[in-house]
C-alpha cells in the first residue's frame, strides 16, 4: 500500500480523529530535508511491493527508510541521498533488502489534499493525502518541477551518514520503552517475561497496530479500566495475554491495560521491523527517554541544516 503522509494530524484527537502520519517519522523528515523541504510537506509512504513511477518532469527526490533496491531506469539508487531525476525516468523497486517502510519525497512536496491541518491520508474517512485513498496504478501525483536546476540525472554527493543512521536504527532487536500505568499490575513472572523474552512481530500488523507474538502476559487480577486516550507506542495487554503496540492509525481511545509505552526515539526502529522479526523490550526512565528525544531533535536539525548548505553549494534550488 502506498499513501501520502506527513508528520500527523493534530488538534482533532478529541473528536476521535487520530493523528495518523508516517509510521517512521525520522525517515519522513530525513526524506523531506534531503529535498531541502521544511519537513511539513507530503511524502509517499511505500510498502513492498512498491509501485513503479514515471517522472513526467525533472525532479529532485530522495528515498529514506527501508531499502527496496530502488532503480532509476537501470541505475541503482541508494536511500538517504538527494537525487536529481531526469524527465522520463522510471523509478522502480526491485526487492525488499531491509526495513518495511520506504519514504519517497520530492522537492516542494507532493501535491496533496490538506484536511484538518494535515496531508496525512485518513483512509477510513476518505480525506487527506491523495483524496483519502491509497495510490493505484495510473494515478498521477503532482509536484513542483525542478526544471531550473543545474543538476539533471545525478545522485548528489552528500548523504545521511551510517553513523547517524546507527543512532536511529542500531540495535534493531532492542526497543526501549517506559513502564506503563498498569505495568505494576503484571505478575512477577510476567514482568520477567516482558523484560527478558523476545517478542515477534506477527503478520496481523498494520498501520493501526503491531501485534506481538510471545509468552502470554497476565495481570495479578482482572481489571476493568475506564477508557482513556492512548498514543502511538502504547503497548496494550489484550485479554488473550498477547500485546499490541499502537501505531500511526491507532484509535484515539483505549480501554485495555497499558503496560508500557515505546520510547518515541525507537518508534522508527520498531516501524521498520518486518513480520517474523524478533526484538526485546528494555525499560528506561521517562527522563532518559526525554533526553534521547532532545538528542534526536538535534540530529534532525543538523541533517536539515547540512542539506540546506549542500543545496546552496551545488546550486540546486
Amino acid at each position, binding site marked *: 500500500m502506498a499513501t501520502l503522509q506527513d508528520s500527523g494530524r*493534530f*488538534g*482533532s*484527537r*478529541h*473528536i*476521535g*480523529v487520530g493523528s495518523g502520519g508516517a509510521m517512521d517519522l525520522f525517515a519522513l523528515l530525513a526524506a523531506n530535508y534531503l529535498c531541502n523541504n521544511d519537513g511539513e510537506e507530503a511524502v509517499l509512504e511505500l510498502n513492498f511491493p512498491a509501485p513503479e513511477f514515471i517522472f513526467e518532469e525533472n525532479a529532485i527526490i530522495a528515498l529514506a527508510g527501508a531499502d527496496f533496491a530502488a532503480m532509476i531506469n537501470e541505475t541503482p539508487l541508494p536511500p538517504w541521498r538527494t537525487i536529481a531525476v531526469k524527465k522520463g525516468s522510471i523509478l522502480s523497486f526491485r526487492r525488499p533488502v531491509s526495513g518495511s517502510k520506504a519514504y519517497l519525497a520530492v522537492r516542494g512536496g507532493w501535491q496533496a489534499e490538506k*484536511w*484538518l491541518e494535515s496531508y496525512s491520508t485518513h483512509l*477510513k*474517512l*476518505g*480525506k487527506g493525502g491523495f483524496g483519502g485513498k491509497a495510490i493505484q496504478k495510473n494515478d498521477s501525483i503532482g509536484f513542483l518541477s525542478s526544471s531550473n536546476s543545474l543538476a539533471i540525472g545525478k545522485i548528489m554527493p552528500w548523504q545521511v551518514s551510517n553513523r547517524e543512521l546507527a543512532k536511529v536504527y542500531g540495535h534493531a532487536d532492542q526497543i526501549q520503552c517506559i513502564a506503563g500505568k498498569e505495568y505494576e499490575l503484571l505478575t512477577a513472572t510476567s514482568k520477567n517475561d516482558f523484560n527478558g523474552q523476545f517478542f515477534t512481530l506477527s503478520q496481523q500488523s498494520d498501520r493501526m497496530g503491531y501485534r506481538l507474538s510471545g509468552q502470554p502476559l497476565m495481570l495479578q487480577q482482572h481489571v476493568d479500566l*475506564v*477508557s*482513556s*486516550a*492512548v*498514543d502511538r507506542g502504547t503497548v496494550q495487554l489484550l485479554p488473550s495475554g498477547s500485546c499490541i503496540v499502537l501505531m500511526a492509525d491507532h*484509535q*484515539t*481511545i483505549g480501554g485495555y491495560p497499558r503496560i508500557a509505552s515505546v520510547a*518515541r526515539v525507537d518508534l522508527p526502529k520498531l516501524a521498520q521491523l518486518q513480520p517474523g522479526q524478533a526484538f526485546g523490550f528494555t525499560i528506561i526512565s*521517562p*527522563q532518559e527517554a*526525554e533526553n534521547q*528525544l*532532545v538528542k534526536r*531533535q538535534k540530529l534532525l536539525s543538523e541533517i536539515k541544516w547540512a542539506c540546506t548548505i549542500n543545496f546552496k553549494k551545488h546550486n540546486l534550488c
Partner: protein
Amino acid sequence: MALHNALAQNAFHGFIESVPAYCSLAIFYDVAVVKASYPSAPTAFQLVKELTEKLIAGLNDASNKADNQPIVIPVYYNGEDLHSLAEHHRLSAAQVIEIHTQQIYKVFMIGFLPGFAYMGKVDERIATPRHGTPRTHVSPGSVGIAGFQTGIYPLHSPGGWQLLGQTPIKIFDVEKTVPCLLKAGDHVRFTAIDETAFNTLNEYT
C-alpha cells in the same frame, strides 16, 4: 472539561492538544519544545504536571458550570434491537422510547471512531449490555445502548451496541469545517420522530 477548555485558552509552550475521556484528560505535548522553553525543569513531564496542577487550582466552580443547552437529536425509533430490548426489560417499545427520550445525557468523550460520542447515564430500566457477538455492519446514524451508555454510530462500522433507532442527522460530516456535531461536555436529548419526518430530514442519502 474545565481543564480541557482552560488548556485550549492558556496553552503552555509545547502544548499540542488534550483529549477528555470518562475520568481523565490526556495532555499531548512536544517534549523538545517544553524543555527548550522551560530549561530549569528536570523533565518536561514534571513541568507539564506542575503547570497543569496550577491550572487546576485556578479553576473555580463557575468554570465547571454546564451552561450549554441540550442539543436535541431526532430519532426514528425502528432499531433492530428495540423489541428484544423491550421484552428483556418487560416493557413495551413505547415505554423504552419514552424512557430513552426523557433523559438529558452528558457527552463524556468522543473516541473509537471519529465523532462517536459516549453519552450517559442511561436509565437502569433500559440499560442493557452489548451483544456478545457484534454485528459486522452497523449503518451510520444508528442510535444504540451499551450498558449505561448511549451513543450514535457516525460511520459504517462493526458494532455490538443494542440498536434502538436511526437519526437522520449527520453527527460527523467530513465536508464541514467543524466536522463533529458533538463534543465532550455537551448535553444531549433525543426526541422521537416518525418515518416521514425521518425521510424528510435524512442527511445520509
